[in-house]
């Protein structure tokens, strides 16, 4: 009776794989080593969601570890997981290059490795079963579309000028989002000019300072694209303080501050990326790989556009 209840509650995808396989494989032991839980709300929520999803699923037994941002500790954790003979390892890389030898070791021990959230460097791809995470290039492109659509509504798509505040220089996420935005904007709005890009280092205060300088430098700014909402809100604060009310702000990774600013009508749009979806997608990818299903190597989960117009369809982010 209990078994039936639990099975009914488990996800549709799992039901499809069939009970025969489940019985054959028994519970999967899946180990995860995370980057740095607690350093920001996204990672904290991710961990909670991962644990909840693993507990809910009685075909999964999980070993949840956190590297605390330390590459050496993460490598040791992968080795521990190999020793514990887990069925699959999920890794949120602390560093895209340095973890490759450890990933290779797991691969040689015939343990499939799933990379989550941010991918490892290309030379490690041979040792990875699948990458589960957001597609940052698409996110950047979608932000460009949100911005362009808004300019068209306002009728300024022929003359609008945009500045960009990007993430920390050198970080893949920052580079990919900027690239997605810069490539897509001229395709959808060829007459909009991106006048300058400066980094805000994922930091609200830094972004506020950058925006203050932009406001001094340019008398005419119609739109700001920020690599995440934290920086977007920093830029918004600077514009408010300077009394520049008519600027369109578009971010990425919708944070609760961004959501609130959208509610207040100050901030136009963003990309909705849920750490819960991220965690659940990683676990599901691992299960699919273990079930021998055909999983794409780049297994992106969807990160939809969110604007003031459709925000009611989304719950406020918890981070």
């Amino acid at each position, binding site marked *: 009776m209990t078994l039936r209840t639990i099975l009914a509650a488990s996800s549709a995808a799992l039901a499809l794989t069939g009970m025969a396989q489940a019985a054959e494989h028994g519970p999967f032991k899946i180990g995860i080593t995370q980057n740095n839980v*607690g350093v920001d709300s996204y990672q904290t929520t991710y961990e909670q969601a991962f644990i909840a999803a693993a507990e809910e699923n009685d075909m999964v037994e999980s070993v949840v570890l956190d590297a605390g941002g330390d590459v050496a500790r993460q490598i040791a954790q992968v080795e521990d997981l190999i020793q514990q003979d887990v069925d699959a390892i999920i890794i949120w890389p602390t560093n895209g290059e340095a973890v490759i030898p450890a990933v290779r070791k797991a691969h040689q021990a015939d343990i499939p490795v799933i990379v989550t959230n941010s991918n490892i460097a290309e030379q490690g791809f041979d040792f990875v079963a699948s990458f589960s995470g957001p597609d940052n290039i698409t996110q950047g492109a979608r932000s460009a579309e949100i911005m362009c659509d808004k300019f068209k509504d306002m009728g300024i798509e022929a003359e609008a000028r945009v500045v960009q505040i990007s993430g920390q220089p050198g970080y893949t996420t920052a580079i990919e989002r900027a690239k997605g935005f810069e490539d897509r904007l001229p395709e959808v709005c060829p007459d909009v000019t991106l006048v300058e890009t400066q980094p805000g280092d994922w930091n*609200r*205060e830094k972004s506020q300072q950058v925006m203050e300088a932009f406001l*001094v430098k340019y008398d005419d700014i119609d739109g700001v694209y920020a690599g995440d909402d934290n920086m977007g809100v920093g830029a918004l604060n600077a514009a408010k303080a300077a009394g520049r009310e008519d600027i369109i702000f578009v971010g990425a990774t919708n944070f609760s501050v961004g959501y*609130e600013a959208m509610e207040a009508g100050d901030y136009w749009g963003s990309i909705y990326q849920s750490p819960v979806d991220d965690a659940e997608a990683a676990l599901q990818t691992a299960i699919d790989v273990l079930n021998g299903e055909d999983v794409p190597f780049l297994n992106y989960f969807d990160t939809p556009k969110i604007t003031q117009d459709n925000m009611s369809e989304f719950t406020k982010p918890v981070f």
Partner: protein
Amino acid sequence: MATLTKQKIGSVLAKQGILVAFALFIIAFTFANPKFLSVDNLFSVIRSSAILGIMALGVTFVVISGNLDLSVGSMMSFSTIVVLDLHDKIGPFLAIPAMFAMTLCLGAFIGFLVGYLKLNSLIVTLGMLSAIHGLTLTYSGGKNMDIADKEGTWFSVFGQGTALGIPVPILIFLGLAAVLGLVLARTPFGRKVYAVGGNGTAATFSGIRRARTVFLCYVMSSACVAVAGLIQASRSLGSQNTVGQGLELEVLAAVILGGASLMGGSGTIFKTVIGVLILGFIQNGLLLLGLQFYVQFVVTWVIIILAVWLDIAAKRGKLWSPIA
């Protein structure tokens, strides 16, 4: 007569090499972009330098006393997160003193370890850098901290308000600089700080309680950090846990750029303020130039080295002085 004037100018230059360097940068940046000297921009630079500057005032005391403080960055994150959290829980009137009390406790603890247990200040404060970061994360559970009602609180006055047309953070920064400048230059405590850093043994023989002086320097530094955290929190009414990360090195750079010796015993508040402004104006000036940001890191370093060299060259009276 002519030589006298020349000597006079020479001696002014020797004392204030850093001021000359400062003036040169301002002129160069203004030529590159005339908006650099606009009132709006000046206010914006000094206002965003205020947080770093206030922390640098406290660290100046610590450095003159012959010690280091690398914990100020993560301590500032701590103050910011704590005051934002308490703002919604117990109201701003109680949140501010509670945050000050907690931050001062951290400073007192460091002061105790360095002053009374005579532990190496580099090790103690480097350790405290990560320990306090951990404390902040434990306190917040890793979540960003935001004030719920951003429009309805008077708390924003410290970071966003203006008085007499001047932004409040600038007033606090310059006010504190004036007070602490007087404390350092004109009070017995200030003279003790120089004595302890300049020659500890001599200070002991003159009856100065070195441990207590060092202890007070760290408490003073943490008080400055608390003020900086207050302004930071009030400026954006919300914050990440890592808001102050990396600031400790910028603070130290500003203090050293201002001419305080890492060996202790020398430095002034006025010069620290100049050091802070140079750093702030470099960052702002490079932004206004629109230089590609990978290049900015390199150019920032070049300008700092140039400033230090001009300062040293003016003191020695020659540009070329190999180690011999």
